[in-house]
């Protein structure tokens, strides 16, 4: 999902847009030809859920912070789901603790920057996109953090043809999404903040503390107007790659997105996502895989949490993250296997190899962990004999 967003963000960033341009003039989609968001492979949140946002805005009578499209209460409702007084149903965008969404929304309302942390596959990008869509009505002001992200991506760049022809001027300046967000009082997003080199990260410090972006070449500065804020996401498995300096860290309120709290919730998420993905890939429908899905989720949870579901036995955790997203991919994979090569029913053997691949990331240490888990937990469990056999077969 982030790949799409990058294209659109960079495309819009490369078109020289004056920072004083009003929001209505600014192209919200990448190419005019792609205009109809319904036809896009993946429409932006503000388009996909435009109806809900409109309904919320219409019903919202609470005070809104400057340039917010909705009040904080409405933003929280948009993310958590609910039913409006007129009967409009708001679908939940984020399934998880209410507290997290409340803290995130409150942080944005107190003009502190928000840092969403979490292991891969915990919906960080998803939450940040929907927050930006609900708060500013625009989730496209995005900087994708990579090891090669330059300072221009966060501050501003130059249109060199203009620069050479007419010298430095506001017209030759190519504003970054962050700069545009500052000028217009919108929400900017930075994805994978910890992948960005440390010196580039630090250019955010002035922006976040002084709320201003100097342009020394022009002897000007861009001051953030009220409503500007920034949502960053970072992967806490990557800690230490380009760790945030404490000066930068201090500018953020941190919210950690947890893995699903209960097995049932996770099975629910996995089943739903597997169905969606399977449909979009035109996989043949496989009936009744719920038992194996449940099994995959259980194995992932137990290894991840280091304790069995009944809370009786502790197990070691392997080095992989074993996120819900990986569980989804194991199941999709197993479905494809059973549909094309198996008897059309999701069997233990179809998921065993996938599980092994997900669990054993480090051949030496993880293999011991996996074998110990197989021998002490799986072997003893009632009704898991087939699964045990299948795992033994692929592990041997």
């Amino acid at each position, binding site marked *: 999902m982030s790949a799409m967003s990058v294209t659109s963000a960079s495309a819009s960033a490369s078109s020289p847009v004056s920072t004083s341009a009003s929001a209505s003039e600014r192209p919200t989609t990448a190419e005019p030809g792609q205009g109809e968001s319904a036809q896009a492979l993946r429409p932006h949140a503000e388009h996909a859920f435009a109806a809900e946002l409109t309904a919320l805005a219409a019903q919202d009578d609470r005070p809104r912070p400057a340039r917010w499209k909705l009040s904080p209460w409405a933003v929280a409702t948009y993310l958590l789901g609910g039913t409006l007084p007129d009967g409009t149903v708001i679908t939940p965008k984020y399934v998880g603790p209410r507290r997290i969404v409340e803290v995130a929304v*409150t*942080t944005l309302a*107190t003009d*502190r920057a928000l840092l969403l942390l979490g292991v891969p596959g915990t919906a960080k990008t998803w939450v940040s996109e929907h927050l930006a869509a609900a708060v500013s009505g625009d989730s496209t002001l995005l900087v994708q953090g990579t090891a090669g992200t330059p300072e221009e991506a966060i501050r501003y760049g130059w249109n060199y043809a203009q620069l050479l022809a007419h010298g430095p001027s506001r017209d030759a300046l190519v504003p970054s999404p962050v700069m545009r967000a500052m000028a217009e009082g919108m929400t900017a997003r930075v994805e994978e903040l910890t992948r960005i080199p440390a010196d580039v990260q630090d250019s955010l410090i002035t922006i976040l503390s002084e709320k201003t972006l100097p342009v020394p070449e022009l002897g000007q500065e861009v001051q953030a107007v009220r409503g500007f804020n920034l949502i960053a996401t970072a992967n806490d498995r990557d800690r230490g790659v380009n760790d945030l300096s404490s000066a930068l860290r201090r500018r953020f309120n*941190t919210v950690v997105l947890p893995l699903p709290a209960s097995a049932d919730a996770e099975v629910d998420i996995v089943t739903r996502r597997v169905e969606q993905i399977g449909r979009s890939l035109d996989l043949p429908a496989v009936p009744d895989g719920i038992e194996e899905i449940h099994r995959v989720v259980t194995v992932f949870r137990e290894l991840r949490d280091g304790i069995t579901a009944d809370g009786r036995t*502790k197990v070691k955790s392997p080095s992989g993250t074993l996120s819900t997203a990986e569980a989804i991919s194991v199941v999709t994979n197993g479905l494809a296997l059973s549909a094309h090569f198996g008897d059309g029913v999701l069997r233990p053997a179809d998921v065993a190899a996938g599980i092994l691949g997900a669990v054993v990331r480090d051949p030496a240490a993880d293999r011991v962990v996996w074998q110990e888990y197989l021998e002490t937990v799986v072997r003893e469990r009632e009704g898991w004999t087939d699964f045990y056999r299948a795992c033994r077969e692929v592990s041997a």
Partner: protein
Amino acid sequence: MNDTRWPQAYASGPLLLGVRHHGPGSARAVRGALDAARPAVVLVEGPPEADALIPLAADPGLRPPVALLAHAVDEPGRSAFWPFADFSPEWVAIRWALEHGVPAHFIDLPAAHTLAREKGEQDPGAKREGEVRGDPLAVLAEAAGHDDPERWWEDIVEHRGPGERDPFVPFAALADAMGALRERYDAGGHGRDLFREAHMRLRLRAARKEFGEQVAVVCGAWHVPALREKTTVAADRALLKGLAKVRTDLTWVPWTHRRLARSSGYGAGIASPGWYGHLFHAPDRPVERWLTKVARLLREEDRIVSSAHVIEAVRLAETLAALRGRPLPGLGETTDAVRAVMGDGSDVPLALVHDRLVVGDVLGEVPESAPAVPLQRDLARQQRALRLKPAALERELELDLRGDTDAGRSRLLHRLRLLGVGWGEPARSRGSTGTFRETWRLRWEPELSVRVAEAGVWGTTVLGAAQARAEADATAACALADVTALAERCLLAGLPNALPVVMRVLADRAALDTDVGHLAQALPALVRSLRYGDVRGTDTGALAGVAMGLAERVFVGLPPACAALDRDAADEMRGHVDAVHSAVGLLTETRAGAVAGGAAAAGSGPFGAGPGGGLRDRWRAVLRALSSRDSVPGVLRGRAVRLLLDDGALRSEEAARLMGLALSPGTAPADAAAWIEGFVGGGGGLLLVHDERLLALVDGWLRGVSGEAFTDVLPLLRRTFAAYEPGVRRTLGELVRRGPADRAAGRAAHGAVTPGFAAEPDTGRADAVLPVLRLLLGLDDDSDMRDDNILAGVGV
């Protein structure tokens, strides 16, 4: 203070101050109301037997949190606690009375009746909590449109700051609300409340008779309407007539914030005593002060938290409160703010904050003048029952555990040792090594009484205290071996109820300990206690389960752990392998015995042949894997082969093949010498004496070792062979001196038989031994076939 308020305070009879137990807002309100009303007597919900103990509350040595402890005189285990923190409204009322020289009395149902009730409802703390926690508050909160009754109560009552307001209004409003509630949800569910309230009314009437109208009552909000009710003295008396009674004793005991917290066993029903204490003591700006406190704590723990963090945290907490529609940030909002701003979203610093501040480490104190703790009494009672007098003179005590009294004494001494009361020290038994005999060295020193008093925090009886202590120790223990040792002590002390906790900790530690050495160390002790438990008839099902799990983990982890070890580590590992080997043998036996005894074969999985057999087979597979893996040091490979050979799991030809492999020229001499040490080291020389083939292999290898390498392997070989008994050494020397040629010649002469034996069995002489052998083996005559087989085995 304001005298004009008096008529208002007592306008509707006595001043009834309904509170929530341990509510700081309630406490603050009570203090304000008492200051304004200046009653002539203060009545407090609590056991009236404790009236005599009230003056102690003025003693500077008595510092809350403390609890009133009531226990039955002849059964200290039957006890009840009334905890007080300094922010408890009841405590505030008592202190107010003492400071103003006004009498204070407890008016609840006497503890004599409370304790006489059936055992299932011993804990009045829970009962007290039940009154407010249950329906009434939830219903009130629901009526106000809140889903969380606790939070609602906090918003409207506990978070009320100090201020110039009419001190009586909240109480009146609360009383009305409770009255309305009681009308709908009558006290039907709270059968005991009828008695308690009747008693309260009686005491209230007596107080009014004595002191007039100026009476203030501090009690749970739920009871207020009942106290206002107009009933007749006779009716109340009749209700209380004939209630069961026991003789009780009361005293003050020190209490802790941790025990006030809901999470710990006794649970007076508040989750955050530290937070409440803060709310009570903070003169103003509670949120700012609280977050500053948190920042200071985190700074002490070397976390960088600046004033800017505090400012942002306060802002976030206040905005969150606004978003959630609360008048003031509560604990939830401040916690969320601390997590997001100061803690980088992590729960680790939060756990620290919760532990140190939200709950807090406050420990109460009780002056020496308070009556003795019940643990002391229970100990004295047991000492009498077991005829074991404490004496300052050291003496030795021999116990025969087969007798009831002696077994009881042993258990008592072991329990006291667990509690840190070192009255007896176990000494080595003289003469006998039987497990049914124990020797103790006893000496009672005066400071042991202090220890007993200290141990009083763990419980009211020796049994209960030892159990609580063992559970706490298990949770706190760091090393796996400590926990196994504790399990052993629990068995010795007869604390089967503490075992589940110890076992759970043990299983957890075992699962998380990545060092196979630790696991291997823990296993033998565990298997020992398993067998010992069997001897004592303790139920050791859980123990066996953990032991099996531990063994499995060792099996899986051992082969990788044996790779790439240096010499010292390899030697240490050899010790572990030996220990696990004997433990597995013992475990197999024990399990087999248990299964034969009728217990379910719980351990046998889908692939386990039998409970014990499977275990042993898997262990052999592990040994086989060890013996054939090149990365495993020689000493371990040799040891593994030897163990397999001794077990009969490896044919001697196969052993010879492996030995030949290990001693082949391709192997480094040092490694080969280590293999030999592992194989025949530690008194295994007889094998070489009797198996010529193996000796020839060693001999041949040694002759092939080059001159330089020989100096290297010499110390190792010396260490191996020096450990043999002199006789074995001499025989070996003679065999070697005779030389391989000689031996070959000898073998030819003897028809290829072992030296010392004839070529053919001498059946006549063998038959002569049979009767004695039968006697020794306890075999019957009709099992001739077996005898023959055994003899055949011996003959070859």
